[in-house]
């Protein structure tokens, strides 16, 4: 399946759910290099390693839209400007999260003033500086955060997730 078709599937999916718009700045969605498929049942899935951006692409407190582990799972890549636990990069301040609210799957928007993701559906909010901790809301889990690796060239790769992403019973979709 080609990447651009995945994008279309994703859009239709979100429209069907009654959700319009995506999070953050209007950067192009970065797509994973290949379709991720879990082959066998394991305790933790094999995740695709997906280049999301280069450090040079990021501006402080301006989230970049991403899709991970595949294009149907929207997220943001964010340079916070101050180091946080779990942050990567030379400044320890780069993080990435799913933007699907783990309560009912609405796409959340980023509020730069206090660096939170906010849900238009039922008003839950999550702290991007605290590992996606739910500040207040209805979700029964904190926000899935994507594991990041920065290579020698400054390329940022996503390589995993630490909570189940809304709308899929396997983070890496199974055939």
């Amino acid at each position, binding site marked *: 399946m080609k990447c651009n078709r995945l994008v279309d599937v994703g859009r239709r999916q979100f429209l069907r759910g009654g959700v319009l718009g995506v999070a953050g700045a209007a950067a192009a969605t970065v797509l994973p290099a290949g379709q991720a498929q879990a082959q066998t049942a394991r305790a933790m899935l094999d995740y695709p390693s997906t280049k999301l951006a280069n450090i040079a692409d990021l501006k402080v407190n301006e989230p970049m839209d991403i899709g991970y582990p595949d294009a149907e799972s929207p997220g943001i890549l964010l340079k916070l400007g101050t180091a946080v636990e779990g942050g990567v990069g030379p400044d320890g301040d780069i993080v990435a999260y799913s933007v699907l609210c783990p309560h009912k799957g*609405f796409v959340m928007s980023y509020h730069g003033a206090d660096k939170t993701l906010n849900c238009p559906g039922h*008003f839950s909010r999550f702290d991007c500086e*605290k590992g*996606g901790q739910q500040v207040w809301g209805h*979700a029964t*889990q904190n926000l899935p955060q994507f594991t990041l690796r920065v290579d020698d060239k400054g390329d940022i790769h996503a390589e995993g997730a630490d909570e189940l992403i809304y709308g899929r019973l396997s983070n890496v979709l199974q055939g």
Partner: protein
Amino acid sequence: MAYKRNIDRLPIIPAGAKEHNVTCHYCIVGCGYKAYTWPLKTQGTTDSNWSGEDLSKQQGAETAAWYSPSMYNVVKQNGKDVHLVIKPDVDCEVNSGLGSIRGARMAENRRSDITGTQQQRLTDPLVWRYGTWQPTSWDDALDLVARVTARVIDKDNENDLYVSMFDHGGSAGGYENTWGTGKLYFGSMKVKHCRIHNRPAYMSEVHSSRDMGVDELNYNYADYEVTDTIFLVGTNPMECQTNLFLNHMVKGMQNGAKVVISDPRRTVTVDSCEQVAGAENVLHLAIKPGSDVALHNTLFTYIADQGWVDADFIAKSTFQGDVAVPADSAYPASLGSFEAARAACKMSLADGAAATGLTEAQIIQAAEWIAKPKEDGSRRKCVTGYEKGIIWGNDNYRAIGSLLNIALATGNVGREGGGCCRLGGHQEGYYRPSDAHVGRPAPYIDQLIIAGGGKVHHIWANDHYKTTLNAAEFKRVYNRRSNMVKEAMDARAGATREELVDAIVAAINAGGIFSVNVDIIHSQIGQAAHVILPAVEAGEMNLTSMNGERRLRLTEKYMDAPGSAKPDCLIAAGIAQALERVLREEGRDAYADQFKGYDWKTEEDAFMDGYNKGNPEVTYERLRAMGTNGVLEPVKGFADGKLVGTNRLYEDGVFTRHGREDGKALFCMGEWRGWQAAGKAQQQANHRFFINNGRANMNWQNWFLDQGNEFVMDRFPVPFIQINPEDMAELGIKAGDMVEVYNDVGATQALAYPEPTAKRNETFMVFGAPNGAQGNIVNAGVNELILPNYKATWANIRKISDATPASAAVSYKSWEVEL
């Protein structure tokens, strides 16, 4: 870093998995869920599963084809390990598929030996032996309970047996279990010294509503969707009745309803209403704490003066004359006619504004939204919801009565889009023999225990240590008195049962207390217990309850009880049977005979013995068929294979809750009188901070389990206190610092959470925490009918520690959404 489960895949529910009806057992709303169970070594596939959806694809928002790790567990069913998923039911009218942060963790909060969740659950009876609690058989534990209890009760005097027993539905309550305990203590016995799970005596929380003829749950939730105005008083439904708010109040606002909220604090509910309805359609009356009666009486006066009342309704359905019930020790205010109440409650806008701290314009605005007829002359519909802000606030009887006055005067009870109801805490599920022998006012049990009253204490899912007032003193005394018995038992280690009972009785006659604790976990007051009996919750048994609109449903048993734990009704039956046996052995046959009639094998037997006797149409089989939508009580019949219920109370304009034959509602003649309970004004004068207190979204009604839930304890390792940031700066307190909150009656601890919307010197502390009991600093003041006034509390605050590592790691950002 925030707590993460690191679960990135879940077993798929197969087609044909067993499906069980579940009503969330935590809060009053009672959202519908379905529990799915299936054998451990099997699962569905992405293209063949319970949902019929293609699960190889990302599912859209609000899908029914997804569940979170918190909705999953592995539990025992008929002795075998099974997968369990408990997910919200899209077909339930209460929640339409919405899950709350509490209910959507039901599965995770089940005990599992496979996943290790809720290992705090009790599995076996425990008896104090050799200086600690030792597991034992039910027969052994119940024999000790019966032998000691039998020594302090007799046919004509059961006053030395004190009983603390829940009266609620949901959780481990329900019609089965209130009947089991009720039959034991109010049928076989006539126990007078008893109290309820969250208050220090055995009484209604809404006496005035009932005395005025109006049951406190009189509408249905859809009334919020078709009303013109939603009037919320001392209640925070976005947090505490979440899906009532999201699935019904939000629809009302979307249909054009305005909202009036009376609360000293800007709650999440205020913000959410502004998000939905627009700030111009939301009026927050941030009254001075405790001034509710003044607000209500001023509104009532103004509305009546404008003629915005329903004269026909008043004439046909309310008492005509002057005083119907004069005030006395059982009635904290006189009750009578509309005109009599107008005279008694008369309060000018100027006086109302001064008492409440509001402007006259705000009060007028509220009155217009509540009662002013529309431009075409048609009456305005207004639904009123209230809860602990006035129930546990100042002058309970008059606060509720004065609020109901407004609803009655405007004809908003028994009508579509109307109703004047408490929003509630637990679900309800009360079916017991009469409690008339308890008296009114009821005995103030906690103070009697402090004063040395009671020799044997049976406790059913009450934790006074966390949820009573004057808790610091109560704990000191209770620990001392129960320790006297522990020491006596320790001193007779190795003795025979007879010798041990003699030693216990000697200790209680010397001022000790023998404590029997029935609970699902080893509670804090359970630390003082001598016998601990393990109970079960809904889902581990079949359990019936009704929600805040009287919606009766059966939660089906979907898993085994932990260990040998039992439903409370069967534990009560076991105590009754043991008492009968012991009394007969002692030759007290006439008294023993009173304990016959407990040969129940199952909770359904208890249901049929109790609730079904009064409601013969209602059976488990019929309720099962009614699913998660159930039937609204009272049930009127059975037709076409369905139970027939009652959509709304008092649609005929006949009011009956007070028992008056004329069927006329009464008005409350309660003038505003400032602080009613003893010691409140003095405490206010001597301390800087108002310590408002209540519940929070995350752990409301489920903290007893959540103290063993990492997701919750990670967010708030210590109970929070919200303080204005400028007050914090003055005291040298940073976000997350541990503070001590102390006053003339005690002290407790909290984590400082800056809240910019908090008024200066007005804080909010979460109530009922396992590791920071707010009740420690609540004085013993109660109303005339022993209703506790938890809310009116003042204290000083000092820093005792920098943030602990756990507290330093959490977010201190605003709870108000930014879209």
